[in-house]
């Protein structure tokens, strides 16, 4: 097997240059690559284009990068939880491309599956369709949407082996596997790094061929955004 292990977040992101286009896995704060985000904040990489479903919150996740003005452009589907984001957007400091969540996911899939473009009905008849090619199949209109072209994809998995095979836990899976397939260079941080042979080949979510660097992350906070509970009765 090919060994993809790197020493940690710092090494994993060391060659992400200013101006790079990067994908970041996660949905809300669930399944985000905390270690790599913190390393990018520490390194203060600038002018990034970030493809991520959400933009974190003011003091956690991508919000930390926004606060430091590291992000030139965000491509996201929902950014409602981040006041600093909204301020930068309304003031024109930040470019934002808001796209439907399924379009975001499927443009990742297209990149990972070598499909240059896909058709989706999402956004037909709305401002999302502006300037886009529309095509009718069987009486229904679809937009042509292009595969993403990302320099780096950064994902967070539950377990990974040294060959880069990844397993995600529960709904922290979300965008992580599709982004893992979509990066020119894919970096995976995992809660538990294991030897090859420790993971059952039938239950690998992301085969190692898609992963270029893997390391065991540390000090995961895994912050909960909306803590909702029911009463014991």
């Amino acid at each position, binding site marked *: 097997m090919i060994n993809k292990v790197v020493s940690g977040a710092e090494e994993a992101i060391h060659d992400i240059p200013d101006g790079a286009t990067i994908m970041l896995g996660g*949905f809300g704060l669930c399944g985000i690559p905390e270690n790599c985000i913190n390393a990018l904040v520490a390194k203060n990489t600038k002018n990034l284009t970030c493809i991520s479903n959400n933009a974190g919150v003011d003091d956690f996740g991508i919000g930390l990068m926004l606060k430091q003005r590291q992000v030139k452009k965000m491509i996201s589907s929902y950014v409602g939880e981040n006041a600093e984001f909204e301020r930068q957007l309304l003031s024109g400091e930040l470019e934002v491309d*808001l796209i439907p969540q399924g379009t975001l996911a499927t443009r990742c899939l297209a990149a990972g599956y070598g499909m240059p473009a896909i058709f989706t009905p999402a*956004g037909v008849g*709305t401002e999302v369709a502006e300037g886009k090619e529309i095509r009718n199949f069987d009486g229904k209109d679809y937009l042509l949407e292009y595969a993403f072209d990302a320099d780096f994809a950064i994902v967070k998995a539950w377990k990974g082996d040294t060959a880069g095979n990844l397993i995600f836990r*529960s709904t922290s*899976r979300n965008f992580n596997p599709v982004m893992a397939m979509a990066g020119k260079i894919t970096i995976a941080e995992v809660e538990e790094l294991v030897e090859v042979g420790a993971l059952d080949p039938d239950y690998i979510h992301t085969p190692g061929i898609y992963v270029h660097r893997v390391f065991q992350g540390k000090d995961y906070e895994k912050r909960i*955004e909306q803590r909702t509970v029911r009463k014991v009765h």
Partner: protein
Amino acid sequence: MAFTKEEIAQRIAKEIKDGYYVNLGIGIPTLVANYIPPDINIVLQSENGLLGMGPFPFEGEEDADLINAGKQTITTLPGSSIFDSAMSFGMIRAQKVDLTILGAMEVSENGDIANWKIPGKMVKGMGGAMDLVASAKNIIVAMQHVNKAGESKLLPKCTLPLTGVKCIKKVVTELAVLDILPEGGFRLLERAPGVSVDFIKQATAGRLVIEGKIPEMTLN
């Protein structure tokens, strides 16, 4: 008496049939889960990647890795499955989800919906709403009949940026149940107990179609 949010949810729950896969949006739609009749089997889909969503966890049992599309901590039911975002929206586009229930800022008489953006004011993004409304075979909107300024949210034409066009099949508000006619127009099906047809007329800016006697909504 106009219905409460809980009652709107309760009324919508009656639209859910045995064997349905259902996607519930944020807000009133989320409440619908509390009123599913116990004698039918349905499955809730959460578009962040889950089929078989269960109730909120008990205190102390929250799992940061297990949330719904509203980012709330939840649980799974036996028989649930987890998948990635591409498959989640794949099954939505392929119309495997039988019913989608979501909120709206505006609905037009031809079935357009606006629920994601107020230019210059609110820029949160559309999340999965555009995918859901573009693909779902059956969409019910749960919302207030009028906004806080007292203006009707059932319009001849939406004034806010659209989320989707000609996609809404039914609207349930605190005042009424209405479906949208293929040729356009809100057809009044039921009214809240004690709410008059005239009152609904005044609260509806779009074309309202009234055929025969309109029964009162019942909740079970």
